[in-house]
């Protein structure tokens, strides 16, 4: 999907946005490729919405430039940008029918009537809303409104499609269904897409690449699996999914296997691969709960195991999350899948051993 030869469809160059003393976006650089679905993921107030609004033209950057298809559009008003947005609230015009909403943007381009009609018909077909063409937005359900909003933002064939919290207004069940459907529609049109979301599941389901934003800065950019499996900071590791982080001291560095000591563990911690730190440095060693194995018997391996007592169990149907308290008081999470119905499972107060292979852990520096 990534085309390295051509220039990026959307480029953000050293963009800073300040509101008075406050900087919502700090020196951000981004390059989004043609045909890519890119997600800006972060908590509330991280600056992701401000960044999206600068792409749409509702805000102008205090410093830096926004480039669309190689052209600097930093000071171009929204109505002259080849960009369309699907709003979080959908922002459908309540006084217009579904059809009129979709044709709204096309009419501004002064296209011939027949051409507008064909395009509206095509768009409504794309989102399966043809039979609702004559309805007003308040006669539609949440999911239907979203389809109309999507059709409206795609109707003008924008170079970049912006989605602001696309699933924010839907209930959970509809959300997972629409996520895949929206991706299908976007990919069938082939439009470059930037979405903003606070929901990591949504970002990971829909996007080709995800960037984690925090406090106005981009922490990490990568594919969903890169970000999940190889987080580059404590913040990213904790933001995406759940994670156990052990505060550790670097003992021995080698390109194959590095060793760490941790006060929570009786044995040494080992992590596959080299470490970008000197011996004696303080780092974090992160292990995802699903990569931790549990057993009543002591494991064979000499490294990477701990003993604890089951403190809490969250039974979630498909899998269970065990909260295991170590002697040091630290609580470690481990998940198991519930494959057998009649299995004799671990229960409260049971003494268990937790262990994991050296390839499962990641070293975090900050």
């Amino acid at each position: 999907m990534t085309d390295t030869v051509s220039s990026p469809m959307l480029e953000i160059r050293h963009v800073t946005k300040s509101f008075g003393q406050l900087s919502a976006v700090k020196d951000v650089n981004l390059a989004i490729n043609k045909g890519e679905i890119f997600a800006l993921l972060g908590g509330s107030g991280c600056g992701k919405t401000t960044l999206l609004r600068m792409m749409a033209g509702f805000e102008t950057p205090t410093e830096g430039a926004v480039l669309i298809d190689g052209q600097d559009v930093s000071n171009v008003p929204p109505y002259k940008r080849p960009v369309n947005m699907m709003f979080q609230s959908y922002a459908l015009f309540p006084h217009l029918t579904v059809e009129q909403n979709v044709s709204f943007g096309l009419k501004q381009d002064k296209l011939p009537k027949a051409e507008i009609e064909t395009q509206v018909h095509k768009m409504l077909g794309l989102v399966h809303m043809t039979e609702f063409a004559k309805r007003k937005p308040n006669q539609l359900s949440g999911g239907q409104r979203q389809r109309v909003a999507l059709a409206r933002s795609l109707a003008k064939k924008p170079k970049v499609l912006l989605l602001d919290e696309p699933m924010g207004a839907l209930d959970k069940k509809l959300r997972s269904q629409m996520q895949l459907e929206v991706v299908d529609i976007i990919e069938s049109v082939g439009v470059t897409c930037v979405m903003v979301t606070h929901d990591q599941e949504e970002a990971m389901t829909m996007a080709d690449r995800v960037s984690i934003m925090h406090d106005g800065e981009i922490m990490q950019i990568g594919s969903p699996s890169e970000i999940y499996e190889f987080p580059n900071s404590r913040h990213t590791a904790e933001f995406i999914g759940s994670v156990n982080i052990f505060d550790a001291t670097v003992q021995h560095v080698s390109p194959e296997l590095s060793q760490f000591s941790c006060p929570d563990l009786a044995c040494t911690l080992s992590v596959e691969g080299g470490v970008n730190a000197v011996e004696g440095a303080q780092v974090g060693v992160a292990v995802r709960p699903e990569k931790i194995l549990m057993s009543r018997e002591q494991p064979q391996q000499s490294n990477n195991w701990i003993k604890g007592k089951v403190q809490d169990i969250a039974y979630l149907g498909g899998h269970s999350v065990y909260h295991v308290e170590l002697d040091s008081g630290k609580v470690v999470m481990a998940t198991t899948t519930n494959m057998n119905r009649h299995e004799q499972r671990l229960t409260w107060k049971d003494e268990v051993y937790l262990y994991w292979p050296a390839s499962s852990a990641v070293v975090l520096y900050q």
Partner: protein
Amino acid sequence: MKKFGVRSVIAVPYLWLLVFFLVPFLIVFKISFSEMQYAIPPYTDLVTWADEVLTINLNLGTYAYLINDDLYIRAYMSSVRIAFFATVCALLIGYPIAYAIARADTATRNALLMLVMLPSWTSFLIRIYAWVGILKNNGLINNGLMGIGIIDEPIAMLNTEFAVYLGIVYAYLPFMVLPIYTNLVKLDNSLLEASADLGCAPWKTFLTVTLPLSKAGIVAGCMLVFIPSVGEFVIPEMLGGAETLMIGKVLWQEFFNNRDWPVASAVAIVMLLLLLVPITFFHRYKARELES
């Protein structure tokens, strides 16, 4: 028990309307069918009982008189015309004011709203009377203009129709501004952004999104200005002089100068019927709004 409670709550407005609107209306309606006489009260009874004979005297002459004498028709026409153009002026002035207030930030918004309503804290009569001092031949405007030498002779402004328009627009402007403001302030900003996003320049967004969505406020504001303007008495009396013919003034003259209560009542009834047209239109519109 609960039903009684619900009923008594609903009964209050009904009782109010019955005592202060329906009963007086029926009295006026009754008087319009009687004949004038020099007595107390100055009209004849509809129903008399004498020598074991019950007589009902229904005098339709007053209504016939209203139709035959063109003074009344001219007064009605001129009232509706003045009220209509005054409403249009108030809309043209009031809409931008309401728009500016609704777009202002919250702190200034309240201050601006206050400024719109503040003049109403003084007596209506005094505010209209103040315009006499401003508009008369040796008033504020004429003296000012002559003082700086722009004009040699005073411009006749008082006792013209212009002064009546000015008075109505001035007095009823808040009733135009407030409903439009209430409507515009609720307008979702993301709709305006969506319009811009889809290629509309600001003025086009105003015409295609803001204006259609504020229709309910415009209709309400226009009704609130038009309806009282038709029957307005104080403004044409003080600012309009003898030239301006309005039904409110005719009504006053019939009641107090001619002491012809039946004709005055008939004038009032016909005015009410005239106003029923825009009021029904307004209600229809409201009902349609609620439906969609």
